[in-house]
């Protein structure tokens, strides 16, 4: 089976926790995690609901592979209607929390309503109860984890929580588990905050004992781990350098968005690269990077654990940040660095630490700072308004503003709105580098054309994790395509989108897809789950998930106009590098994309398409 077949429903208004059987018919159509939780969400909430109202729901979900010995089988997903975007939000995370939920016997937990006071959910196998969290409110995710373990005298509890940013409903706040893993994007943390739900604490000792064919599962998962071990990206690049190895690569392609996407290359990219992380610092002779670490079950181990320079201005008076901690990953290093023109690696790590500690998405935070700095430089905002001088490149401003945003102080409250609302407020909506209100990650769509279409059509707003065509356009996985052309990209994007949805629904990490295709996860899922799981079926599950998410967004009020990039990317050509003179070709790719999706000219799925997917 691999599903536990049990759902925990927590009504925060009434204070009740009840179990119910998983809808297995839906499990067969949507697999798990992102797919299955989204199915529950779209069936249970009005797409027009205010994301921060009691009527929104928040679902934490595992997949059938979560908590098994399959490599990377430790992921869980947070699904809700996102406050940053107003679209369906689905953020997934590694660490150990997802597997623990499965070990406690739950496929998913559905939170509904709103508690009248701060609470946390304590789950111990079948037993679940809401407990007072007033003593945790106003504290960080790190303190919350420590305190819950301490007061229960159980260091083996796994916890997922929000920090002050989620409590304050910062629109890009995230849900953090195991200290430095996060369901990061779209403001899922603010939804928890709006429900007065501080944390979810789980201790599961039941394990996963129901895989369909244990002997076959052991054999096939071992074979597939070997593929990961022998692959250049998953076996060597990611464990050794982490995702940040991309910094110099993408910069040389002229696709590293710099200073709020004004430029496509950052002159100091090397200073914030994976190579810089591993190099001994001048100040204390120690490398920033301490070691790599893995999430539950992961044989890749791309995670970075680093130590900040104790004498750096950001932490010199703050010994609590002197220990080892998570970071930096590529997207965070880009958003906190190149996007603002900041080249101080220690400052980037400090901002990243605060994002982890208080629960904020470093991509949206960093990109919003990029917009703030541009408005500071063009005179829209000044020192008096912001509270600090904030020109591009100011590490001091970055560190100051991350504190203000995390703590809800001064101008930080406005930064917490995200770049779209902030730029609109100050009359410069065109300076928000976002789609559907969510900020871009670290690839410029003028230099990597497929990523432009990826961002424009992503159901959760601009995002690299919905169809990472960088794999093909830069790394040649599974086949090399030309990053500078729009030709063939609609098909490429669609194929990546559907396959990614299937990976996400399984409970495995999308990073395996550097080495695995659907053909590699298929035998693992088939050995673990009841039912007949062919590659074609997984493909269809992926396409069904994509169309279901799209339908939700259409009902929420999104139109074709929302599948567009900011003007800067379609009208201001890249100034240098291989893409010099190019703009993002989304307008020419979109009609073809809609067509091959089986959608009409307005981007609405046709009745025929929906029927073929059983929607």
């Amino acid at each position, binding site marked *: 089976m691999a599903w536990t077949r049990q759902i925990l429903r927590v009504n925060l208004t009434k204070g009740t926790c009840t179990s119910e059987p998983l809808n297995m018919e839906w499990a067969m159509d949507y697999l798990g995690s992102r797919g299955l939780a989204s199915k529950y969400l779209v069936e249970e909430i009005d797409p027009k609901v205010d994301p921060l109202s009691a009527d929104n729901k928040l679902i934490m979900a595992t997949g059938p592979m979560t908590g*098994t*010995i399959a490599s990377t089988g430790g992921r869980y997903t947070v699904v809700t209607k996102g406050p940053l975007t107003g679209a369906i939000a689905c953020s997934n995370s590694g660490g150990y929390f997802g597997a623990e939920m499965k070990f406690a016997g739950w496929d998913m937990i559905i939170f509904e309503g709103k508690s009248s006071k701060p609470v946390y959910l304590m789950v111990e196998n079948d037993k679940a109860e809401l407990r007072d969290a007033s003593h945790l409110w106003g504290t960080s995710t790190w303190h919350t984890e420590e305190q819950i373990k301490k007061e229960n005298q159980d260091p083996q509890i796994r916890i997922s929580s929000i920090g002050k940013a989620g409590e304050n409903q910062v629109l890009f706040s995230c849900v953090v588990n195991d200290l430095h893993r996060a369901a990061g994007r779209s403001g899922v943390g603010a939804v928890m905050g709006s429900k007065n739900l501080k944390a979810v604490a789980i201790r599961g000792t039941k394990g996963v004992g129901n895989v369909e064919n244990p002997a076959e599962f052991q054999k096939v998962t071992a074979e597939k781990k070997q593929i990961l071990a022998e692959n250049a990206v998953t076996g060597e690049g990611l464990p050794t350098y982490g995702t940040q190895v991309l910094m110099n690569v993408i910069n040389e392609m002229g696709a590293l968005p710099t200073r709020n996407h004004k430029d496509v290359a950052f002159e100091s990219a090397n200073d914030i690269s994976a190579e810089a992380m591993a190099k001994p610092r001048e100040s204390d002779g120690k490398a920033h990077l301490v070691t790599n670490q893995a999430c*539950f079950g992961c044989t890749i181990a791309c995670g970075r654990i680093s130590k900040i320079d104790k004498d750096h201005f950001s932490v010199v008076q703050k010994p609590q940040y002197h220990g080892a901690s998570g970071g930096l990953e590529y997207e965070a290093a880009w958003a906190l660095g190149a996007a603002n023109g900041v080249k101080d690696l220690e400052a980037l790590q400090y901002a990243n630490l605060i994002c982890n500690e208080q629960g904020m998405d470093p991509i949206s935070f960093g990109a919003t700072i990029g917009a703030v700095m541009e408005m500071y430089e063009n005179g829209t905002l000044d020192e008096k308004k912001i509270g600090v001088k904030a020109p591009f490149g100011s590490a001091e401003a970055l560190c100051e503003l991350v504190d203000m945003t995390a703590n809800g102080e001064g101008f930080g409250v406005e930064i917490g709105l995200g770049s779209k609302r902030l730029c609109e407020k100050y009359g410069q909506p065109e300076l928000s580098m976002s789609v559907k209100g969510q900020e871009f990650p670290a690839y410029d769509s003028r230099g990597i054309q497929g990523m432009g279409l990826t961002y424009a059509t992503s159901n959760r707003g601009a995002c690299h994790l919905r169809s990472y065509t960088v794999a093909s356009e830069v790394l040649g996985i599974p086949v090399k395509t030309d990053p500078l052309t729009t030709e063939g990209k609609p098909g490429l994007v669609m194929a990546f989108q559907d396959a990614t949805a299937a990976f996400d629904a399984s409970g495995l990490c999308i990073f395996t897809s550097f080495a695995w295709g659907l053909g590699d996860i298929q035998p693992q899922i088939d050995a673990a789950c009841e039912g007949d799981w062919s590659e074609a079926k997984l493909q269809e599950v992926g396409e069904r998930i994509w169309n279901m998410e799209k339908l939700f967004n259409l009902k929420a009020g999104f139109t074709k106009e929302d599948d567009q990039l900011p003007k800067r990317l379609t009208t201001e050509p890249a100034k240098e590098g291989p893409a010099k003179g190019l703009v993002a070709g989304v307008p020419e790719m979109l009609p073809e994309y809609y067509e091959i999706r089986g959608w009409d000219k307005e981007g609405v799925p046709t009745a025929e398409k929906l029927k073929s997917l059983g929607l």
Partner: protein
Amino acid sequence: MQKSLYIDPEKCTGCLQCEMACSFEQTGVFNPSQSRIKVFSFEEEGRKVPYTCTQCDEAWCMQACPVDSIKLDAATGAKVVQDDTCVGCKVCTISCPFGTINYVVETGKVAKCDLCGGDPACAKACPTEAITFVDANWTGLDKMRKWAAKANDASL
């Protein structure tokens, strides 16, 4: 040749493949809470350390057992709990200086590493060779090799 588990924490990433493999081998369930090897996390230093029974020669647990339920497996050197006679008195859990034998509420018996009969699942599952199963007389061989390499380096 008898073999021993050899653990090199520096190579551990904290993936818990060992705990999954151990629990599956011992109980048929993927369940770290039933694993006889545990990975500890030292967040401040960014270290992960796997820890399990070292199969002491004069094992405290074996000496302390009042019903003689912990026996030596002569082939592997493992000290193995006999489930059919263990009465769950827990005296062994008190006597073990390392904490590597523990009571299991679900079975009413104690559980510890038994080296899987000579082919430990944890070592096979470890993706980074942080856990290996090596010649019991030469668990120091890898460390010796490292130092030997330094001794041979004229630049040092």
